[in-house]
């Protein structure tokens, strides 16, 4: 499977995701934001970081870069797109995913391991996970507080477009286990066709038992499945 990782000035998780993809047998290419051609890809990853120093709004400037036009085209043609952390913010700013990511409810940058529950496994990104499986992943963000209109929120729930929700170690989804104030404890969402996934937690940081754990591995192997 061919993957492309988009690199912006200020991206800082691009190498981590490249390492994860290569370890899991993707043939990966790094693509600079000024490029106007996207290599043929089965998966495009918009990585985490602080693209353009988070100027204006997180992800707002990156969403207008040259390569994003190509990403939008590819996404609309059905290519799989994964936005992690700042990548999720960028995807919402392009309109590929609806909603917005606001400042965390406590106004602090949060960098810690958290638990999320896999809500929907009937899709290309999560089919190797078990339904209701609890994953320990890492978050590192200042704007992860997912917000959308009440109509869209209902649509997300009704159409099962929320793959991950923040929870406790045992999988209880309660407001106390919501690190950033996200609506309905949302940690990640799909578009309607489920070929675009945006998520705040970092699966690429959980691919090696020696360093952290293996909870992120199945997200990538699901795509290969």
């Amino acid at each position, binding site marked *: 499977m061919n993957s492309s990782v988009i690199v912006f000035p200020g991206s800082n998780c691009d190498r981590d995701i490249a390492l994860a993809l290569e370890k899991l047998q993707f043939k990966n290419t790094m693509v600079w934001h000024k490029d106007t051609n996207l290599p043929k890809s089965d998966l495009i990853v918009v990585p985490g970081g602080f693209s353009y120093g988070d100027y*204006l709004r997180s992800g707002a400037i990156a969403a207008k870069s040259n390569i994003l036009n190509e990403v939008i085209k590819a996404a609309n043609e059905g290519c799989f797109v994964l936005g992690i952390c700042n990548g999720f913010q960028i995807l919402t700013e392009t309109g590929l995913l609806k909603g917005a990511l*606001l400042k965390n409810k406590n106004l602090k940058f949060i960098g810690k391991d958290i638990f999320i529950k896999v809500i929907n496994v009937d899709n290309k990104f999560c089919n190797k996970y078990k339904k209701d499986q609890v994953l320990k992943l890492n978050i590192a963000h200042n704007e992860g507080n997912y917000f959308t209109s009440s109509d869209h929120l209902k649509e997300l729930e009704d159409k099962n477009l929320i793959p991950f929700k923040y929870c406790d170690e045992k999988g209880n989804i309660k407001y106390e286990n919501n690190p950033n104030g996200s609506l309905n404890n949302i940690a990640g969402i799909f578009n309607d066709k489920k070929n675009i996934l945006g998520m705040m937690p970092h699966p690429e940081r959980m691919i090696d038992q020696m360093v952290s754990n293996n909870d992120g591995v199945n997200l990538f192997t699901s795509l290969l499945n």
Partner: protein
Amino acid sequence: MKFSIKVTLKKDVLDPQGKVVKQTLQNMGMDTIKNLRQGKYFEIEIDENNEDKAKSKIEDMCKKLLVNLIIEDFKISRI
């Protein structure tokens, strides 16, 4: 021609920064404060003589980049 743009969070969007600023002002003794919302401000000078045309160009800039219409409102004024 010069314009100012005020960007504010929509009514139903929580504004934790504004809340903290309000609390701090209250703690400083300014306790008559009723409500406070924090926003953004831009000044844009544009090379255009027709005010209507200039305004519609500024509006386009707001919709395409300066403002996230899901969470923010904006108001354009000539200065």
